[in-house]
C-alpha cells in the first residue's frame, strides 16, 4: 500500500508506532532531532520485542534484527519526502508542533497524510498551518502502542472522507481497531481522563489518601486495570501536565487547572515510568 511510512519524534509514542509499523512489514523512516533519542528508541524496540511474548502470550515470528532492519533511524527530515503517510509524535507544545508541520508541508509530497498523534491539541488548528487541512487527521494511539488494539481517530473540520478511509485502512493493516470522533480539545479519551488524573493528584496533595490507596480503590471497586496515578506514571507526568495546560487554554475553563503537585513533579524530573520515578518508584 505504501513504499514507506514516516514517524516523527522518537519518544515513548513514536518509538511504539515505529515498532508496530515495522512488525507489520512496513519500511519505516523514524525521524528525531536527537541522535541520542534515536539510539534509545532502537534499544527500546529491541527490549519491547524481547518482552512481547510475556505480555501478549503470542509467539514472535521474527527476530528483533529483522524488525529493526525495516526502520531507518535518522535526524534528516528530508528523508520524509518519500513517505505516503506519516505519524507525528513530537512534544505537546503548540509552537514546536507548528514549526514541525510547516517543515513537513515543505518536504512531503501533496498526497501524504499527516496523522497527528497528540494527547490534546486541536487537529483543526494543526490543519491550518499545513495548507492541506484535508490530509490532516488525529490518530491518538494508546500507550503502550504494541499492546493496545484500539485507536481514537479524530476528524478535523476540513479532514476529507478519503483521508479517513486511508487512515482506517492503514490502522487495520497493523491490527488496530479505530473509532472516529469529531475534533474537540482532548477528544473523548483525554478530555475526561486528564481531569480524572488531575483530581487524583489533588487528593494525594491534600492527603485525602495515599497513592496506593487511591489506585487500589479504582482497581478493586471499578475494575480498572490501573489506577489514575499509575496511569499518570505510564503516560508521563510532564505529558499529563502539558495536556492539562492545553485543555485549560483550549476551553478557558478553570476545571482543567493543573494540580500544583504535577508541576512540582515535572520540575523535579519525576516524570513517571520513563524517568524511573513518579508517584511510584521504578528504578531497578
Amino acid at each position, binding site marked *: 500500500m505504501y513504499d514507506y511510512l514516516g514517524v516523527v519524534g522518537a519518544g515513548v509514542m513514536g518509538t511504539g508506532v515505529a515498532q508496530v509499523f515495522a512488525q507489520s512489514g512496513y519500511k519505516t523512516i523514524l525521524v528525531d532531532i536527537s541522535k541520542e533519542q534515536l539510539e534509545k528508541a532502537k534499544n527500546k524496540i529491541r527490549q519491547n520485542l*524481547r*518482552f512481547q*511474548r*510475556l*505480555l501478549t502470550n503470542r509467539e514472535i515470528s521474527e527476530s528483533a534484527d529483522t524488525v529493526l532492519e525495516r526502520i531507518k533511524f535518522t535526524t534528516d527530515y528530508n528523508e520524509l519526502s518519500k513517505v505516503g503517510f506519516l505519524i507525528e509524535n513530537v512534544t505537546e507544545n503548540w509552537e514546536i508542533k507548528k514549526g514541525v508541520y510547516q517543515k513537513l508541508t515543505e518536504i512531503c509530497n501533496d498526497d501524504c497524510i499527516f496523522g497527528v498523534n497528540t494527547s490534546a491539541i486541536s487537529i483543526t488548528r494543526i490543519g491550518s498551518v499545513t495548507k492541506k487541512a484535508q490530509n490532516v487527521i488525529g490518530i491518538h494511539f494508546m500507550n*503502550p502502542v504494541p499492546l493496545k488494539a484500539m485507536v481514537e481517530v479524530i476528524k478535523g473540520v476540513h479532514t476529507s472522507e478519503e483521508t479517513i478511509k486511508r487512515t482506517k485502512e492503514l490502522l487495520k493493516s497493523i491490527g488496530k481497531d479505530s473509532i472516529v470522533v469529531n475534533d474537540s480539545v482532548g477528544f473523548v479519551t483525554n478530555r475526561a481522563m486528564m481531569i480524572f488524573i488531575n483530581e487524583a493528584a489533588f487528593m494525594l496533595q491534600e492527603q485525602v489518601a*495515599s497513592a*496506593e*490507596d487511591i489506585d*487500589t480503590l479504582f*482497581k*478493586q471497586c471499578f475494575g480498572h*486495570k*490501573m489506577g489514575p496515578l*499509575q496511569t499518570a506514571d*505510564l503516560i508521563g507526568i510532564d505529558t499529563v501536565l502539558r495536556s492539562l495546560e492545553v485543555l485549560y487554554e483550549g476551553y478557558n475553563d478553570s476545571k482543567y487547572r493543573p494540580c500544583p503537585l504535577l508541576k512540582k513533579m515535572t520540575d523535579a524530573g519525576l516524570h513517571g*515510568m520513563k524517568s524511573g520515578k513518579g508517584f*511510584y*518508584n*521504578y528504578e*531497578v
Partner: protein
Amino acid sequence: MDTMLIKSKIKEYLMRSVRNYEIKDDDNIFELGIVHSLFTIQLIMFIEKNFGIELEDEELDIEKIKTVNDMVELIKNNIEKKEKGALKL
C-alpha cells in the same frame, strides 16, 4: 548467593511497589491483583540487573516469576549455570 539473601532482596524490591501488602513466599503476585502487567518487565529487569544474569527467551514466562519461591529458583538456577560456564573457561 544463598537462598535467604536472594529472597530478602526480591521481597525488598516487591515491597517498594506494593507498600501496603505483606507478600508471602508462595503468593501468586499476579492473581492477587496487586501488580499490573507492565510491572512484569520492571521485575525481570530488576532480577537481571541485581543478580547479574540474563534470562533465556523461554524463561521470560509469568509462570516462572509468579511467586517469590519461583523467582528464587529461577535466579539460583541461572547463577549456577553462569558459574558452571565460568569454570569451563
